[in-house]
C-alpha cells in the first residue's frame, strides 16, 4: 500500500515536472524562433520573389 502510494506520488511529481518543463521551454525559445523567422523572412533569397515579380511585370509591360 505504502509502495503504491510512493509510486503514485513519484509519477505525479514526474508528470508535474514534465508539464512545467514543457511550459517553460517553448516560452524561452519563443524569442529565438521569432527572431530567426524574422531574419529568414528578410534574407535576400526570401525577397527575390517580390523583386522577380516586379521585374517580370516590367518586362511584360515593355514587351506589350
Amino acid at each position, binding site marked *: 500500500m505504502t509502495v503504491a502510494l510512493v509510486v503514485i506520488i513519484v509519477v505525479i511529481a514526474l508528470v508535474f515536472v514534465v508539464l512545467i518543463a514543457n511550459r517553460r521551454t517553448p516560452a524561452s525559445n519563443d524569442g529565438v524562433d*521569432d527572431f530567426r*523567422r*524574422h*531574419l*529568414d*523572412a*528578410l*534574407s*535576400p533569397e*526570401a*525577397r*527575390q*520573389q*517580390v*523583386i522577380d*515579380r*516586379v521585374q*517580370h*511585370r516590367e518586362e511584360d509591360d515593355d514587351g506589350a
Partner: protein
Amino acid sequence: MARDLAIDLGTANTLVYMKGRGIVLNEPSVIALNRQTGEVLATGHEAWHMIGRTPGYIVAVRPLRGGAITDFDVTERMIRLLLQRVGVSRFTRPKVVICVPSAITEVERRAVTDAARRAGAADAQLIEQPMAAAIGANLPIDEPVGNMVIDIGGGTSETAVISLGGIVALEAVRVGSFDIDNAIQNYVRREHGIAIGERTAEEIKVAIGSAAETPDEVEAEVSGRDLMQGLPKTVVLTPEEIRYAIDDVVTQIVQSVVRCLAKAPPELAQDFLVRGMYLVGGGGLLRGLAERIERETQVPVRMSNMPLEAVVLGAGHCIENYDALKRMFMGQRR
C-alpha cells in the same frame, strides 16, 4: 476576398503593391478638386497635368508635404480613390502597410492610419521608408553588418544604418526634391526677374540640374512671365547657375548623411567603407549627387537597381510575409 496592399504614400508619387501581383499603380500624388463643390475631378497623372494650368474653380494639390498629411480630408479621399482603383470595395477590406517618413509625429502617424481605415482598409500598419527601402533594395539586412541607405524623396531625405533587421542609426530632414524645385523657382525669380511654375522648375532640374560638376553639361532655355512687364520672356540658364541655386538644399541633404555616419557605432564603419551606401528615391537621381556625397563622406555611394520602386517593394515584401515581419511595423517592436 481582397488582396492585401502595400502603399508608398510619397510626397511626389504614390505606388501600390498588391500581394501576389506586384506593383499595380504608380502615379503622382496629386488630386484635382472643384473648389466650389469639393468634388474630386482627377487624380494621379491627369491631375498632375493640371498643376498651374487650372481655371479659378479647379485646384490641383499635393495633399502631402514633407511626407506629412497637410490636408486630412483630401488625403483620405485620395487613398479611397486609390483603393477603389485597385479593386477594394466596402465588402473587400484588405490589410494595408503604408510607408511613412521615420520622423513622422504621433499625430501624423494617427492621421495616416485613420485615413487608410476610413478609406476601406481592414487594418493599417506603418513602416519607416528607409527600412522599406533597404528591404526593397535587397541589401543583406538580415546579417550582422552595417547597411546604409539614403532615401531622398520629394519632401524628406532619410539616412539609416540597418543591421540584423533593425535600424541602428537614423537621420531625417524634411528637405527633398521639391525643395530643390523651389530653390530653382526662387533663383530664376530673383536673378532673372521671371516667374516660373513648379513643373517648369522640375523640368529645369531634370534637364540641367546637378549637385556636382558633371561631363557634357549643356545650357537650357526657360520661359516664364516677366515680373516687371507681365509678358512672356525666355532666358538661358547654365548648369553652374542651377548648382549655385540648389546648393543650400543639397548641402542640407549631404550634412544629414554625415550626421547619420557619425551616429553609427564604430564597429560598422568598416562595413560602410567596404559595402558603400545605397541611394534610393527620386531625389537620388539628381546628377552628381552620389559623387558629391561620396566626396564629402569618403564612403562609396551606389545607386539602387530600382531607386523609384525600392520603398514600395520593401513594403510589398512585408505584406507578403506579414506575420513573420510584424515587428518591422511602427509601434509593434518588442
